[in-house]
């Protein structure tokens, strides 16, 4: 996984710890899910691009 996704999750966790407002904590929980989804899609798409580029039947 890209480092920036880990950095984001750390930032989110830190903000959440210091956030007194329930609604904002809730937002951060859901936001962490979306960031995880971004990371997953990034890995999947990059993997598919690499796979297609390295398809030996097409060399």
């Amino acid at each position, binding site marked *: 996984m890209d480092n*920036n996704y880990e950095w984001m999750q750390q*930032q989110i966790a830190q903000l959440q710890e210091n956030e007194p407002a329930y609604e904002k904590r*809730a937002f951060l929980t859901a936001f962490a899910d*979306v960031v995880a989804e971004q990371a997953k899609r*990034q890995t999947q798409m*990059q993997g598919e691009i690499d796979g*297609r580029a390295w398809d030996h039947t097409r060399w």
Partner: protein
Amino acid sequence: MQTLVVVAHPERVQSGTQEFLQASAAPFKTVQWHELEAPFEKEAEQRQLLTADRLILQFPLYWYSAPAMLYQWLDDVWTEKFAVRAGNLNGKQLGIVVTTGVADQAYHAGEREGFTLDEILRPFQALAHKTGMTYLPLFPITQFGYQTDAQKQRLLVAYQRYLTEPYPRHFADTEKWFAEQLAQLAADHPDYQLLLDQFTKNADELEQLNDTLQMMRQNEEND
């Protein structure tokens, strides 16, 4: 986009779920909250319906249906002339938020309730069909009282998105929705701005990867 939430709950005051949902919707200026109370003033109710692009009917499930007050409202306000012949609701969206004390997994063929909520609430889909509205996927809330704090937090945001996010839903729209909320939070907290910048950058990168992938797939098809 303007959203009108029509709440039909005979015991509204005692409902912790409705309280939670109302507080979740409150920060959004584009969302109007309307709790039904008979008798209904037909013209005023109809005028309010006209202002909405997305209409949400929100109620607890009573005997596999909505509480009687919702049907009373439909009978009184959704006249054939208003809702069908004049085409006043045509092109709007209809969403259903239904709360139930029964667990999610019971609503399946072969399970305890035997039918899915989609099947049970089919008449509302017919209503949307008849009036030219786009029927949104259901938003069921089951066993609210038993949910953990993390589940409730996710429910809060999922509900806000159900009221305000474009439909049909694409991941790029979801990213945009979160970016908008972050931008508001960033106004009084610079740490949120850093997150927003990185989030936007990632979204752009994903879009580029997607474009590259589409191009590769296209090229392979053309080979």
